[in-house]
Each structure stands twice: as C-alpha cells, then as structure tokens.
C-alpha cells in the first residue's frame, strides 16, 4: 500500500512563527524576580567561595567574645568569640544544600507516587493516597522532628526527614495533574498508537504537569531551609560543630538581648534567601503556566 506514488495537493506553507523565549521575557519584566536572582546568585557564590571569602575559621574560638560588628569582625562575634560573618558564610553551604537536596528528593519520589496513583487508579491509587492522607494528618514539621528523633541527627538524616515530610505535597499535585491530563485526547491518541504506559507518563503526561510542580518546588526549597533551621534550632539538626543558619540562630537566642547581631544576621540571611526563591518561583509560574498565549 505504501508504494502508491504520491501526488500531494499543493501544500499550505507554514506561517512564520517568532518564538519568544518566555523565560527571558518574563525575567526581563519582573523586577522582583531580578532581585531574587541577584540575591540568590550572591548567596550561591558566597557558599561556593566560603573557604576563600571567610576571614576566619568558622569554629575558631577566640577571647574576643560578643563583640559588636566592626572592621575586624564584619558581623560581630558570638558568645564563644567565633566570627559571625564566617559562620554565616559557611552555613550558606549547608542551608542551600539542604534546601535543594531535600526538595529534589521530595519531588522525585512525590511525583513518582502521584503519577502512579493518578495514572493507574484503583487499588494502587487507594494505597498511595491513604498513606499520603495519613501523612497529611500531621504537620510537616512534626513528621520531620519525629523522623530525626527516631533515626538520629546528622546531615543525611535531616535531608531525608524533611524530604519525607514534604513528599505528600508533590504527590498530591502530581496526582491531580495526571487526573486532569488523562482526559486529554492526546493521551487517548498515545494509547491508540500503542505507546507503553511508561512512555505515556514520561513523555506525554509529565512535561505537561511540570508547571505547578516546579512552582511547588521553589516554595518548598524555602520551607526546607526554614525546616533545617528549625530542626537545628531545636538541637535536632546537623552536628553541633557544623555552622548552619538555624544552629547559629539557636545558639544566639540566649544572648539576643545583649547581642542583637546574633539574631538579626542569620535571620536576615534566611529571610533573603527564602524571599528570593519565592520571587523566582512566582516568575517561573508565569513563564511556565501560559503555554497557549504566546501566539
């Protein structure tokens, strides 16, 4: 049948389409997003270059205790005479790493569960979603505290604990997206063409479900940073000799009436990073969400 000679009708020519880069155009317009990008870039650079930028060893104790910000100690020192600027700089590494690693973990496994539940339905959906419901019944932070209490402190445990606590949000969003997208005719078309379930999920459902998931991810990065800070604040975080923002804040709280800088600077660092990531998340939502409007 395929060897019939083809005699095509004069084809319609394709219209010229100018494709704007949506990311570029959104970020070029959005001042808050620009602010976010700049601040975040500064923190990332600071984290990477901490070994070179930090004027002191973050754990080196001196007799110069509780001194206020000055030329020698840019942000002052704490009760053990450690340089606050160096500690915050080193802490950026841990905090950003925890934020990104946690969310990556939560995203991968949460989306996996959500897509399976939504795509297959039936008892698979039932089992997965009842687990997610169970988890939803507890505040995220309580789950993280519980997991760390059971498995012990330490960087890896903190990351896994926070990731597990955040997993349900991703699972829920992914599942609801899959339920909507499953009704689209291009999914029927894919099934009629004999595509495997895996291909349909990876190539046809996931790319179309990513926009809300990415937005949730940026929000979650900031919550993860706060979560790590909160765990450290409670003494359930990373080891005591690793400076993290939460730990610095926690150590400084007893002296906050005499040394304001011990509360303000680590708090400011957390706030700036969380704010920046949220601004970027908003812009990402704008850039990803509207796919039909840029004709």
């Amino acid at each position, binding site marked *: *049948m395929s060897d019939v000679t083809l005699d095509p009708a*004069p*084809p*319609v020519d394709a*219209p010229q389409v100018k494709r704007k880069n949506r990311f570029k155009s959104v970020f070029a317009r959005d001042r808050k997003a620009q602010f976010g990008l700049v601040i975040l870039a500064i923190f990332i650079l600071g984290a990477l270059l901490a070994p070179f930028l930090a004027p002191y060893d973050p754990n080196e104790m001196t007799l110069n205790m509780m001194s206020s910000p000055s030329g020698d100690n840019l942000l002052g020192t704490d009760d053990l005479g450690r340089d606050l600027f160096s500690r915050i700089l080193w802490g950026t590494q841990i905090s950003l790493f925890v934020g990104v690693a946690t969310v990556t973990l939560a995203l991968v496994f949460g989306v996996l569960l959500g897509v399976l539940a939504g795509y297959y339905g039936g008892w698979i959906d039932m089992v997965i979603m009842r687990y997610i419901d169970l988890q939803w019944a507890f505040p995220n932070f309580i789950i993280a505290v519980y997991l760390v209490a059971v498995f012990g402190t330490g960087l890896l445990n903190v990351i896994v604990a926070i990731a597990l606590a955040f997993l349900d949000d991703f699972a829920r969003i992914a599942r609801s997206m899959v339920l909507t997208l499953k009704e689209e005719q291009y999914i029927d*078309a894919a099934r*009629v063409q004999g595509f495997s379930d895996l291909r349909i999920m990876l*190539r046809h459902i996931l790319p179309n479900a990513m926009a809300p998931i990415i937005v949730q991810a940026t929000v979650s990065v900031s919550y993860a940073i706060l979560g790590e800070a909160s765990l450290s604040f409670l003494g359930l975080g990373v080891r005591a000799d690793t400076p993290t923002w939460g730990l610095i804040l926690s150590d400084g709280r007893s002296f906050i009436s005499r040394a304001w800088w011990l509360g303000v600077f680590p708090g400011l660092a957390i706030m700036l990073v969380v704010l920046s990531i949220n601004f970027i998340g908003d812009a990402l939502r704008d850039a990803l969400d509207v796919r039909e409007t840029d004709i």
Partner: protein
Amino acid sequence: MTALLRIDDVSVHFPIRKGLLQKQVGEVRAVEGVTLSLQRGEAFGLVGESGCGKTTLARTVLRLVDPTLGAIWFDGTNISDLRGKALAPYRKQVAAIFQDPFSSLNPRMTSGQILSEVLHVHAFDGSIPDRVSELLSLCGLAPRFADLYPHEMSGGQRQRVGIARALALDPELIVCDEAVSALDVSIQAQIINLLEELRVKFGLTYLFIGHDLSVVRHLCDRLAVMYLGRIMETGTSDEIFSSPRHPYTQALIDAVPAPDPDGEDAREHVNLAGEIPSPLDPPSGCVFHTRCPIAFSKCATDVPPLQRLGGHHAASCFAIDQNKKTTDPKIRNAKSQ
C-alpha cells in the same frame, strides 16, 4: 470477502460504584448488543445524538474501553481480549482521528516530534524525517510545519497533523471520532475532501462517527443510526436517506433544515417530544418508545429485532410496514426542493 472489522453483539456497561466499599449501585448501559461489520475499503458512518453511545463504541473498537459482552473481530482475529504486547499488531493497523484538534496533539511537542514518535515506537524502517515530510505533504502541509507547536497552527492545520499521525503506520482502518465536528464549516469541507482523497489513494476503511447527517451522507457508503446504545436502522446512505424506515431516523433526517427557506416553511416536521432517556435506566422494550410518534403497546414490552428490508437495509421497529408509505414521499419532497 470477509469483513475487515466485525463488531459482534458488543455491549459496554459502566458500573457506578458508591461508598467506601465501592459497592456497585447501578450501571450505565452505553452500548447494548451492537452488531456491525465493515468491509475493507468502505466508509461506515455511525450517527446519533450525543449520549447515544457512538463514541463509546468507537473507543471500544480502539480498545480504550473494554467491551462488557461480545467480541470485536479484526481481519479474522478476536481483538477484544488481547492486552499489552499482543495488541501491538492491531495498534499498527488501526488508527484514530479525534474530535478536538486542540486537545488531540500534545502541546509540548512539535508536529514533527508527534509524527516521528509513532514511527520511532513502531520501529519504522527508513528515514523518519523523510517519512514525516511525506506525511505532512500528503495532508496538504509544507514540510516546515514539522517545526511548529500545536498552538502555532490553526484548527484545520492541527487536524491535518492529526490525520498525518493516523496515516503514519499505513493503517487499514481509521476510526474518525467526530473528526470534523469541531471545525469551521469551510475547514470541514477541506478536511472531508482530504479524508476522501486519502481513502481512495490508500484503500482505507473508515469508521466515521458523527452527528452531522449531511457530512456522514457525503462521506459514507453505509451507516448505522444509534439511539441509547442500540442500532435503530442500518443501510447504505442512499437507502437510509431516501427511504428511512425507522421513526427515529425519520425524525433525525427531518431535523436537517432544507436549504430553501420556502421549502423549509412548507415542510411538515416530525417533532420528537422530550429528551433522550438516561442510559442508567433505559426504557423497557424498544428504547425509543417513550418518544416515538407511532409507538403502540407492544413497543413498551418487547425489544424489536433488526429486520432485514432488502439490500443492506435493516431497521428495528415493529411498525416498519405501516410506517413506509406515510413518511417516504414527504422526506423525498423536502430533499428534492
């Protein structure tokens, strides 16, 4: 000559479940005991108002829905209980064109990617890019369309990409589920002509689902009229349109307005009372008796069998003989004006 596709007494029921234990509280009888056969190379139409089960029947043929009862035979093989890999040969020979050109193409893939994916999955031997250009030009699109995303094309162009996708693997049968209903009338005509052209060129068989009688009449050799999951009447397009014998078919054809306003005014109409009943609780006996202008007592108790009327023509109605003379001339008149 054996039929390419034989739908053999197929019923599709959807259970309605409620509560924690998912107890079945009822069922929607979307398709009820339908038997049809399509010869190789013919275009077969399936018409009826929305909710009559025609799309469900199409989805059953495409194996997107499992038949509750009955079997579907394709080229001598019963495909209604094949699953997974066993279904692959059937998937290559049967393609579909969908109703909505906006939702039938993945918005994140260019038409080139959409077309090459099918070829890739089914291990097309030959140059995939060449085949993509060939498919596009078959459907009246320049090769440059391969780089466009669905939202960068018009509805008609998108539908052409959908048709190109259906042709990709040289299928035997194409199921067109309301393939032109979502398009503008002028675009409809182009797409219908394209479908006809392709059928002749490749000897395709169409199962064409539609509610627009003039489109179905134009495109199809034979057709079946469905109502509430059952076949009311079937026959060649000429048989059905020039001498409809079932009161439902007569009402459907009558509802098509005549192009001439004077003729339209002069026409007497058969108006059907009420709405299509719920397939949750279909009427007893003949499902059409609640709205039928000529129903009598037997219609409410017994299910009328499909009676042969000569040629391909058959209708399921107890009143076929009485019904013949009353409506025939009138429909003819309306059409000849």
